[in-house]
Every structure is written in C-alpha cells, then in structure tokens.
C-alpha cells in the first residue's frame, strides 16, 4: 500500500481519501495481529525469564542468608519470628501448617485422581432381605476435577507465599545490615489502612473473583477436554474422563457430527454469522436511534424535556424478564397484536413474528431497539451536552445546515468519545442472552442446524446455543465448554483488533 504524506493526502479527492483510509484500516489489521503475537510471545518469554530470575534469587538468598533465613526455607516465617516480626511469622507459619495439613488429608487424594478423573462409578447392590437395591457412590469425576483444580490453586498460592517468605528474609537481612529497624507487628497492621491500603481493599473482591470467576472458568476450560455430559458425570454409571482435543475436532471439523444433516462446524458458522450480524445491527440501530431521540429531546425550544426523558427511562426500571416476556407474548401468533389486528380485519392471517426466520430476526432487532433506546438516549444526552457550543456557532457562521452540522461535528465527536463504549456494547450484544432467550428462545427452529446438539433456531446466538446445549436433552457440558471458549476467542479477537486499530481507543490515562 502506498503511503501518502500529509500534503499528498490533502490533494486526494473525497473518494480516494475514503479508499486510502479504508485500506489503511485493513492493512493495519495484520500488523495489529502481528503485534499481538509479538506481545504474547514477549509475555511468555518474560514469564520464563521472570521465573528464572526468581529461582536465581531464591538460590542466592539461601547461599548468602544467615541461619534464620536458611531455616525459613523449611519453616516458613521462622526468620520473621527470629527477627521479632511476630505477626508475619504467625501468618506464614499458619499458612504452611494449613497447607501441609490439607495436602495430607485431602489435597493429595484429589491430586492423585486428577489424571484419571476416577475409576469406579456408583454401584448398585441387591438387598435380598429388603428386596431393594442399594446404591454406593465411589469416585465422582466432577468432585475430582473441582477439588483437583482447587488443590492446584492452593499449591500455586503456597509456592507464591513461600517465595514471599524467602524474599522477606532477604529484605529483612538487608535492612538490618544497613542498621535500620524492622517494622513491628503494629506497623504491619497500621500499614493495612495506609501504605498497603490497596491490598486491604482488594483482598475481599479479588478473593471473590478468584473463587467464583477464575476457578470456574479454569474448570470449564478443562471440561472442554473431557466427555462430561448428562450420561457421563459424577453420579451416572459412567464417570467422565479426559478425551484430549476430541471435542474441538467435533466442533471444528467439516465432516459428520451434527444430526441435522450438517456438521457442527457449519452450525457453528451459521450461528456465529448471525451473532455478528445481530451484534452489529443491535449496537448501531440503538446507537443512532438513541442519539436521534436524545437530539430531539434536547433541541432548543422543545419543552417538557424532563417528562419525555422520564417516560423513556421508566422502561429501564422494569425488569427485563417482565417486559421482554410480555412483549414476546404480545407478538406471538395468538398474542395481542395478531388477535387485535385480525379482529380489526386488517389481516386475515396472523403475522409470523416468531415463526418466519426473517420476520423473527427483524422482530428481535426491533424489540431490542425498544429495549435499548432509553439507555442510549441517556448516554448520548450527556455527551451531546458536552459538545462545545462554539463549534456549532462557528459551523453555522461557516454556512452549515443542520444535517451538515450533525455529519461534521456531532457524529465525529460522538464516535470519538463513545468508541470504547461501542466496542463493549458490541461484545455485550454478542452475549445478549436475555433479549433472545426471553423473546424467542431461539425460535424458529433451523432444521438443518438442529440435531444432536439440541434444536438450533434462526435467532439463536452463540450464548443461547451454549445454554441450550447445557440444558438440552443430552446436557453436553463438554460441547458447551468448547462453544464458550470459541465465544471467548471471537470476542477477544474483535476487541484486540479494534483496540489496536482504532485511534480513539487509547489507554485509560488519556481519559483522566
């Protein structure tokens, strides 16, 4: 691609400029991807180098440390005790004791079962006296995987704490050597609301995120490599086990697979395409129409601004499961709209809002507009009011009409400011479970795509498909995991490309 200097660029015609910018954008994508890979590579390299450094540091600490330090390698917190930092010592030691106790009592057991995910499922035995069958539960793959993962988390935490313990000794030695005093327990406690206040504040939220977000995600990613489903779970006669990359093969291979006469990959492709179309339309229809409504309400000379705004905002307050379910039923074949239109004699046949693929797709987008405009109206109102009035004044003096003012001032300004919002809104819409599930549940059924992985509809998004797989007849959790990972890959890819290519999305400090 030819690169133009600024002055050369200015000589281009409007069309040429557009083409130039467009090519620049798309030529930027490979570079962005390349940068991404380089970044990932350097991250990995950095991680290994860091581990190497840490090990080196541990060794040198041991070599150069005094006997207190050396003992701390085995008995955590010993150095702290010996140097009078009682609180730290107690915490370190306590952690070590708990860790070792846990590993002996439970952790080792779970860890040893992790590679096989259990051997013996539940068994059933006949009790002749009572003429009944008695069930005995043995291994439970689910629990093995869950507690195995937890144990690994715990081990990592222990290694980290051990490392901190070693480092502490080194630092303490240095401080003492330079003739200064160490901080006592009181100082440690006090620092929790001062120097280390951030750690105190983050402790609780991060624990929650680790246990209830990170651990489950790790777990579900692992499930993608097993055959965990309704018939293979912790309670069923068949335990589940590792299957390697089979599930990815199933989803991505072009042959065989899904029952509806087409492969999983084709089904996945169809749903992904619609998901992207939906996300795009849902984002931008809401954006522009919301902006339009906001501009109407904010126009000079329009009265009762507050009332108009309140009417729209009120709809935000009502839980979606009520409004969407109700509206969904309203448009149903035997719903209010069809029935009253037929009563009025305007139509002979009910309109196929949810029966015809195209109708259904248009309907969900239309109703999504109904749901989304109030939010967008609020968001854009704030930004619109922030556009400096003198921009418009100077434009009017330059002879711009209302449309030109919108095109040349309002829109660029809005797009620049809301760039990040549009991105999050796009990815949010990709995962917009509520609107689709409550309105159509994915209907109407797409015959070609339906089959072993449950019935797939024309309005199904990846996220609703994932839900259907999970709760469907076969409860194919493993497939749901693979789809979930795919959703992640798609969202991450789009976000990264946009982040790297769009100029207006810079790092957060620019907004501060």
């Amino acid at each position, binding site marked *: 691609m030819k690169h133009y200097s600024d002055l050369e660029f200015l000589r281009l015609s409007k069309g040429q400029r557009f083409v130039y910018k467009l090519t620049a954008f798309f030529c930027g994508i490979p570079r962005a991807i390349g940068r991404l890979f380089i970044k990932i590579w350097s991250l990995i390299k950095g991680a290994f180098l860091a581990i190497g450094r840490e090990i080196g540091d541990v060794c040198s600490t041991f070599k150069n440390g005094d006997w207190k330090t050396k003992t701390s390698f085995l008995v955590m917190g010993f150095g702290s005790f010996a140097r009078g930092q009682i609180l730290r010592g107690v915490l370190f030691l306590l952690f070590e004791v708990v860790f070792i106790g846990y590993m002996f009592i439970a952790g080792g057991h779970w860890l040893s079962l992790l590679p096989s995910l259990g051997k013996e499922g539940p068994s059933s035995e006949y009790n002749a*006296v009572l003429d009944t069958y008695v069930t005995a539960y043995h291994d439970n793959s689910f629990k093995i995987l869950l507690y195995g993962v937890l144990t690994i988390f715990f081990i990592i935490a222990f290694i980290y704490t051990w490392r901190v313990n070693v480092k502490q000794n080194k630092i303490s030695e240095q401080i003492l050597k330079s003739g200064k005093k160490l901080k006592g327990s009181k100082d440690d406690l006090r620092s929790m609301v001062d120097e280390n206040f951030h750690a105190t504040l983050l402790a609780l939220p991060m624990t929650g995120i680790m246990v209830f977000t990170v651990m489950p995600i790790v777990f579900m990613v692992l499930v993608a490599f097993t*055959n965990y489903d309704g018939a293979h779970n912790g309670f069923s006669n068949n335990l589940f086990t590792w299957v390697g990359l089979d599930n990815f093969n199933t989803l991505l291979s072009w042959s065989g697979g899904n*029952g509806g*006469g087409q492969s999983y990959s084709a089904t996945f492709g169809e749903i992904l395409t619609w998901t992207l179309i939906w996300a795009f339309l849902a984002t931008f229809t809401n954006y522009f129409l919301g902006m339009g409504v906001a501009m109407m309400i904010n126009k000079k000379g329009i009265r009762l601004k507050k009332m108009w705004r309140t009417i729209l905002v009120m709809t935000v307050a009502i839980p979606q499961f009520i409004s969407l379910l109700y509206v969904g039923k309203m448009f149903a074949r035997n719903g209010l709209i069809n029935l009253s239109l037929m009563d009025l004699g305007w139509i002979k046949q009910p309109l196929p809002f949810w029966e015809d693929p195209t109708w259904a797709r248009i309907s969900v987008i239309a109703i999504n507009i109904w749901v989304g405009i109030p939010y967008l109206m609020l968001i854009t109102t704030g930004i619109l009011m922030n556009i400096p009035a003198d921009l418009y004044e100077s434009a009017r003096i330059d002879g711009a009409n209302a449309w030109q003012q919108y095109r040349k001032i309002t829109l660029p300004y809005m797009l620049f400011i809301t760039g990040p919002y549009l991105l999050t809104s796009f990815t949010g819409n990709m995962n917009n479970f509520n609107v689709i599930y409550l309105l159509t549940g994915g209907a109407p059924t797409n015959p070609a795509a*339906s089959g072993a992985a449950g019935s797939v509809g024309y309005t199904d998004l990846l996220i609703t498909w994932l839900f259907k797989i999970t709760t469907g007849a076969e409860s194919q959790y493993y497939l749901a995991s693979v789809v979930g990972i795919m959703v992640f890959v798609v969202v991450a890819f789009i976000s990264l490309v946009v982040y790297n290519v769009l100029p207006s999305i810079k790092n957060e400090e620019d907004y501060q």
Partner: protein
Amino acid sequence: MKKLFAILLALSMLLSMSVFASASSEIAGTYDVTIWAPDAAVDLTKSQVEAFNSSNEMGIVINATVEPVSEADAASNMILDVSAGADLYFFAQDQLSRLIQANALTKLGQGAAAFVKDNNSAGSVLAAQAGEDYYAYPLTADNGYFMYYDKSVVPEEDVDSLEAIIADCEAAGKNFSFELENAWYNAGFFFGTGCHSDWITDDAGNFIAIDDDFNSDAGLIAAKGIYKLVSSPIYVNSGNADFASGSAVVVTGTWNYATILEQLGDNFGVADLPSFEVDGAEYHIGSYSGCKLLGVKPQEDAVKGAALNQLAQFLTNKDCQIQRTVEFGWGPANKEAVQDEAVASNPALTALAEQSNYAIPQPNIHGSWWDIAKVITTDVKATDGSDDALKAALQKYEDSIAAVFEMTDEVRNAFTLIGTVGGTNWDTDLPMTAEGDIWTSNEAYEMEAGTEFKCRQGKAWDTAYPADNFVVETAGTYYVQLDAASGEVSLVPAA
C-alpha cells in the same frame, strides 16, 4: 384367563407380603422425603402421603415435602444433580433411559417389579422397563393426544375427516392448532400409515440401535398428510388451549380438558383424531400413548430405599390413580382403575381410549430424536408438496438419525461386523460385544468357505481389522472375535 390372573396377583402379593413381613420391623421409622409433583398434583400428593402414613402397617411415617416441579423439568433437574434431587418424582416416560444413564432411578426389587407388572396396562409396564429390569412405577397412561373442536365450526359428521375439518375451518376463518413442529405429534401421521420408529436399549439403558422406517413409501404418504395440514393457512403450530384466540380445532391431551371446557362451553366437542386421504386410501392419524411414571432416586440407605418403594407403590395403586382421575382427569395406568366409573364418564378419557386403538406405546427414545424428528414438519412445510421434495425431507431425516446415532460414544467406539456374513452383503453392520479388548459377535453365523468380512469401529472404515478382508477357509458356524488391542481377528466355532 381372568382367574389365572387373579391367582397370579394373589400369589405375587403373598410373595411380597412374606418378604416384607420379615423386613417390616426394619423398615419402620420416620423418613424425610422430598417429592416432585406437577403443580396441580401437589396438594393431592400431600394428602395421599398422609393416607399412606395412616394406612400402612409397616410403621413407616413419611415426612414429605412436596414441591411443584413439572414432569418435563424433573428429569433435567435430576440429571443436573441427583444428590440434590427429589427422592420420589413424577416424570414422563421418554426420560426413562436418560434418567437410568444418569443413575437417577433405582432398579426395582422383585416384589416391586411384580407389583408394576401385575397391576398396570401393558403399555405402561413397557414404559417402566429397560432391558430386563424395571425402574419406575406407572402413574398414568394418559399421555396421548386427541382432538378438541368447536361444534359451532366443525359439525359432528366432519370430525372423522381431516380434509373436511380443514375445509370447515378455512370457511369459518378459524385456526387448526396442532403442534406438528414437535416430534411427539408429527410422528402420529407416520404411525397412521404403518411406520414405526423404535430405539433399542441394552440392559443398562444405553441405546444400541434404531429400527426406523419413516423414510419409506408409507412414510411418504404420512408426509403428504402432514403437508395437507401445514400448507393450509389455518394451520397453527400450537398445542395450547387456543379456542379463545382463533382456533376451532386443537389437538392436545387431557391436561387441557378443563380449560377448553370452560372456553367452549356448549360448543365443546372432543373426538379421536381424524383420518386423511391419500390416493383414495384413508389413514387414521395415529399417536403416541405415553405414561407418566413415578421414579425413586437410588438410595444409599437400604431401609429408606425400601420405605420409599413402599410409598411409591401406594401412590401408584388403584385408589390413588382413581383419585387423580377424579381430581384432574388423569387417565389411570392401573388395569382395574381403567374400569372404574369415574374414568369411563370422562369424555376426554373416552376420546383418549378411542384414539388408543391407533396409538403406539411410547418406547424409550434417544433424547436427540425429538429435535431431529420435529424438523420433518418444518421441512415438509417448506416443500411444494411434490413427491420428490417430500422424499428429500424424509431422506434428510434418515441421514440425521444415522449421524446422531454415530455420535454416541457407545457406537463410535463399538466394533461391528460387516461383510458377506449372515445373509448380508457389506450393507449391514452386525453387532459385537466387548469384554475388555476382546470383541465377540453377538451371534454365531453360518459361514461358507470364501465368506469375507471385516470388523470396523464406529461403522466407519478409519479403524477396521484385518487390513485385508478376512476370508473364511472352512465352512462352519462361528463367532467372530477381535482383539482390538492387536487387531487380530479370529473365528470361534459355536459350541
């Protein structure tokens, strides 16, 4: 015949009594039990449990929590987490094999199995059975569908003909509700033309094969019948009580009886399904007849398990079933209860009984079949009604079934025998059973010298032994044996 039956019944009662007589002292006790029943049946179930508490002579006291969980949800919930599931739960029979696989149903002891076999109608007994064993107690045998109609639109003389009914509805601008985009309903057309679709399970409840001929000449006739209805503008894909919203005919079951009676009032009409005509022949639309079952969760405590089985037997006995008929019109599975006056006087149950002549007991069905078979309707609807187009739709159905079946691990991993064996000619896979790595054909086949075959895995050629076809040298009757570890194939003469 009837006498013999009574004797058998008495004998089995005696047998079970004797078993329990010795055990009754051990069963005595108080048990906390969770029961999942459909919303409507919650109160009745509570009172029936009370009745059990006061009437049983074994000293069992059940402390029951009855939660409203629909039959459809019960199975999914149990599979999600058996440990948190109910001890006793109502479920629809098609969920049986899923539930067995998920270990959510306890196998019935001999006494209980005898109770099930002796008291209930043949179809419902079949529904509770997987392989040789019984896993649940029949509650109702009314899970079928028939036709409600608005007498002011459809005159009584037309109710036997689908074509006439469609014409009536079209003339009146009223809809015909028939949830054909649901395999449970659209299969009725195929059964009406003599098609069948059966899934075969092994003793553990795993599906091992399907026997299905929807894609046949008879199936084509059925597809034409479906097309007749779905191509009409008055067709509505719904199984709801739609009379208030423009329908004059609704195909549904007993559960909508009360609502529809209220909606139609004097114009209430109910009948078995009509016939449709193709090429001059009449075909009466068939249906599934299904049961609702009461399942018992596997118990770790033998005594509680025995007590729960007692309770389950009580809840599914004749009196309790009749009570349900009286209270909410559920059709009983109990053979004696069917004869009861309360059942006979219910018009919906009468229509169901008439339809039952054309109904097929719902077998255990692989969960994904429903999703595949319901597509037939959408596909048929999308055609122009020509034979070729309808055939294509049926062919797609068949392909889908085959593909799904291959999807199950059991099939994907199983070896089958294929070749010129047992009267086949490289077109039919013959089943083999594994013991460790050693796979043996299920049957011994007569083989002539020169008979050729291979053992292949997952009905595909990716893994097949031996590399070149196995050629039989000496004629005889052999089992075929394969060592999957080494790939060695050998013949074992039948004893």
